[in-house]
């Protein structure tokens, strides 16, 4: 199975983590992050979330992030599954999982990948609320999260250009 998967359907977290470890005896730590659809935004109830992406670029961008994470943290493996289409509150959106010899590299690699994905992978969320549909705004806090890793990020800047 490819290690970057964009799909409409759900995923089985337990099965994916077991496959990532793959029976290896040199893996000491598997860390994972599962993102879910929240039913409540600060102002309104969220009835559904629709996710759009840029086929082709998404896979390339996330693959490049994994290569970067592997070299930074000495990961032994990584997996990113991101769902697209219409999702309901409580449903899983994304799984990021990494394998490493030790926990610190695993925790850090997982968080780095998630911070990178939030600001540089071409996905867009649209929320359906009782008042209608609206595109979700990018958050400066997500850029700041990536900047902690020493990478420039201006995704949420008003007019600023994105950088790699």
């Amino acid at each position, binding site marked *: 199975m490819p290690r970057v998967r964009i799909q409409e359907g759900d995923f089985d977290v337990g099965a994916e983590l077991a496959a990532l470890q793959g029976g290896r005896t040199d893996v000491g730590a598997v860390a994972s992050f599962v993102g879910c659809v929240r039913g409540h935004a600060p102002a309104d109830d969220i009835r559904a979330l629709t996710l759009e992406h840029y086929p082709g670029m998404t896979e*390339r961008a996330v693959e490049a992030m994994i290569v970067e994470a592997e070299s930074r943290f000495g990961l032994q493996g990584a997996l990113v599954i991101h769902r697209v289409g219409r999702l309901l509150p409580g449903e899983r959106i994304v799984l990021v999982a990494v394998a490493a010899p030790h926990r610190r590299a695993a925790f850090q690699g997982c968080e780095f990948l998630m911070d990178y994905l*939030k600001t540089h992978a071409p996905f*867009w969320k649209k929320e359906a609320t009782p008042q209608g549909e609206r595109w*979700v705004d990018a958050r400066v806090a997500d850029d700041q999260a990536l900047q902690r890793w020493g990478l420039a990020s201006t995704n949420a800047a*008003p007019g600023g250009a*994105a950088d790699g």
Partner: protein
Amino acid sequence: MKLTLKYFASLREALGAGGALEWTPADEPTAAALRAWLRAQSPAHALALAPGRAVRVAVDQALVDESTPLREGAEVAFFPPVTGG
């Protein structure tokens, strides 16, 4: 020059998905020059691609700065800031 143009998310809703484009640049063919030329195509384009509006650009499926020169046959995508994860 021949380009493939793509729009995503709110820009796709405003301008359509894009498609094949024949563009004769007046000057240096950069992503910024293309964006400026597109603004002149319709009031909807002028609004969606207005200067100062948060629009990101990818050339051949990689995020780039708008000053990036475009080559013949490039795939150029315009979209709002990303919000995945």
